[in-house]
């Protein structure tokens, strides 16, 4: 598993942090990965596919020069395809090649029927080109975005804030200088998620949010309130204010269980957001420094 996004379990551990793409979805797994692991750290695991042995930087640099002079016109300066030539980084011959041995006959013979001419390059040159190609990253998975997400209208964001957010939030209170605490993308994710629930807390530090609480009303009419610890169709567990842990068996609607989620507004908004409002709010909140 290069990156983890556990199917149906995402909320347990991922909010306001990278969620991890995978064509196939991992099975449920216990325990949840550490934040470093979930962010692609995986330092304790070998790479899933062993990379080509690293080549000396000088050889890679020489290969880059040779590639630019001979190949980039068709295949692009980064070998990821150009106007006429295909992407070589993901080409089967390049993936199978080790040190130029498979690439060499293709370079020397060309593909005349496909418009690729012959190149008179020696073994050392082709080995250098191979080193350059093998040095190209394969998929860019996990590369953090360097792109600017700030496209919104801060003024419109301020208006939205004053109309929708001030029941719970204040730019001079809980959100004071929020724009200095988070990068714009993290801040934008927090606008939607509201922040991580305590049990979802992973990744970068997120604002402190009041815990989710629960009130259990027993058949006798007695009520017990505390911080929600766990909830299933069969059991509800909570921690009372004095630290006492209590749990109750559930049988349908008995006892009555009412959960108070401080982020309920954010959950209710999920299906209602307009992306433009999200972008505008982000552009406004980043100005609070």
């Amino acid at each position, binding site marked *: 598993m*290069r990156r983890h*996004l556990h*199917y*149906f*379990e*995402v*909320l*347990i551990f*991922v*909010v306001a942090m*990278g*969620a*991890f793409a*995978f*064509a*196939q*979805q*991992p*099975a*449920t797994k*216990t325990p949840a990965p550490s934040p470093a692991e979930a962010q692609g750290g995986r330092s304790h695991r*070998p790479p899933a596919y*062993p990379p080509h042995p690293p080549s000396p930087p000088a050889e890679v640099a020489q290969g880059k020069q040779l590639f630019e002079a001979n190949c980039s016109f068709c295949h692009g300066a980064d070998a*990821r*395809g150009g106007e006429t030539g295909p*992407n070589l980084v*993901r080409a089967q011959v390049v*993936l*199978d090649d080790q040190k130029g041995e498979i690439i060499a006959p293709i370079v020397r013979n060309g593909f005349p029927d496909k418009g690729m001419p012959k190149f008179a390059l020696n073994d050392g040159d082709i080995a250098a080109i191979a080193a350059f190609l093998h040095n190209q990253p*394969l998929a*860019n*998975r996990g*590369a*953090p*975005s*360097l792109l600017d997400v700030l*496209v*919104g209208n801060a003024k419109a964001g301020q208006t939205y804030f004053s109309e929708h957010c001030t029941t719970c939030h204040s730019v001079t209170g809980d959100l004071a200088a929020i724009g200095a605490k988070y990068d714009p*993308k993290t801040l*934008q*994710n927090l606008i*939607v998620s*509201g922040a*991580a*629930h305590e*049990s*979802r807390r992973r990744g970068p530090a997120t604002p402190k949010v009041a815990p*989710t609480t629960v009130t259990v009303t027993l058949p006798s009419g007695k009520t017990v309130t505390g911080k929600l610890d766990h909830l*299933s*169709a*069969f059991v509800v567990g909570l921690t009372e204010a004095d630290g006492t842990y209590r749990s109750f068996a559930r049988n349908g609607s008995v006892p009555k269980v009412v*959960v108070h*989620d401080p*982020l*309920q507004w954010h*959950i209710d908004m*999920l*299906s209602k*957001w307009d*992306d433009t409002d999200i972008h505008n709010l982000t552009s406004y909140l980043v100005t609070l420094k």
Partner: protein
Amino acid sequence: MTKTIKLFLAPLLLILPAAFLCQGLNPASLLKPAINSWPTYAGDYSQQRYSHLTQINQSNVHTLTLAWVSPLTAGPGGGVRTSIGGVAEHPVTIPGSSSGSPRLAGSILQVNGILYISSPDNAWAMDALDGRILWHYWWKSRGATHIGNRGMAMFGDWLYFETPDDDLVSLDAKTGKERWHKEIADFSQQYFSTTAPVVVGDHLLVGTGDDLDSPGFLQSFDPKTGDLQWKFFTVPMKKGDPGLSSWPSLDAAQHGGAQVWMSGSYDPETHLYIFGTGNPTPAYTAKIRGPKTYSNLYTCSIVAVNVDTGKMAWYFQTSPDDTHDWDSTQSPVLVDGMFHGKPRKLVIQAARNGYFYVLDRTNGKHLLTSKFSAAANWAKGIDASGHVDRNPEKDNTVPGSLVSPTNGGATNWPPPSFDPQTNLFYVTLHEGYSMYYLTLKDPRRLMGLGGSEQDVVGSLGTFIAAIDYQTGKVVQKWRVPGSNIGFGGGLTGLLTTAGHLLFDGVDNDLVAFDVASLKPLWHSHIGRVQNAPETYMLEGHQYILAAASGSVYAFCLQ
């Protein structure tokens, strides 16, 4: 072999061809599996995961109790009687594969009272009466994506399973010793193999996966020798191939993905093996896969291939030009039933993209498309031909788009179930939301799964949904308590039974539901449930089998 099983098998043995007078599994029996077995990935070829057994039913399910539990340990150090295979000189060490608790996220076969269990790089045989481990096999891995293993196939006395680093391994079911192994995909192109192979007659159907712009394919091997019978590519690979006009170039098609990483269904009448294909690659941009008029065949499709010839009979594309890595590999379920007043032979799929499809399985004719995830917000609507019209504003964008489903999809590998008593299709459903960010502007750089960051920002919950296939409407929905507020929501796949029960793993509980009301009736807190529950008769008892936290659990009535 016990007396009871002998008595049960006696009539079956009479019809076996001479070559299969053995303890193992006659492939002909897969056409109508015995109730005392679970002999193939989904129990049978229809993938309904519906059992006719009634011993465990609504009136007595509250007395369902543990028969035995058997913990397993992966790797060479943990098993009893471990035999070792594999070609890696320096096998990689991966927790759950070379050591530790295995991830048992696949189907478990039960044939003649023996269970056959697999996880990435590991296989076991176990006595189904008490969970005693009979043998263990461990494969030395070269690496690859160790995401899961969906189970084994059986033919006669031989077992088959796929390794993450792309070998098909055949074992002797009696001893666990390797008969042969055969490379089924190119490791250097970053293929990885998780699929449960499926035996159909003298064909062994084998799928595989990849996340690096390599072409998808389904292969058929001779179960006896491991020789390749045919290989069907799911994308055009040369000039003149059908579907090529749906790609901007042959190079784009050859790198277009459409992996076959889940087991298909089989229709004995038409000899069609019906399976779903994966997403197009590069996954997160349509730009180098052509403008919107290019549909990228046969990605995100339900495809029917004749098992005898390896030729495609028909296809239906569920998600033309997908941009979210939402493949359509989810189990296609075969149902013979009424559709709008006429008896029809159907294939039904609830896809990762949040939409539900009903086709005529004899010819691929589209009958119905509906949205089964209310949250799915990535499309403008459904066109006249039943295809979902993608909204480009909900692609990965530089400033971010709020999109449902999340990368894992509205549903995924956890198997659905069809109950002919309620006439409803049951599926696990996740209504989550992510912010989808495009992280690279040059589309040439978005190889494989690169170029996207997806940050989960919330969920409306995780559900079991019951769908009326004639209308496509969700008629019953059970939400995992707390799954909308960050307290759980892991569902592992469904089983329905003639006892009017539905079983599912829900986080750390194995749960039995009233199949009509979806009211929970029974549960056992067995640890993180990892696979879809199964059932069979053994020695007069109906068993419910499930894996949790690396252990196998068997339940029967007190």
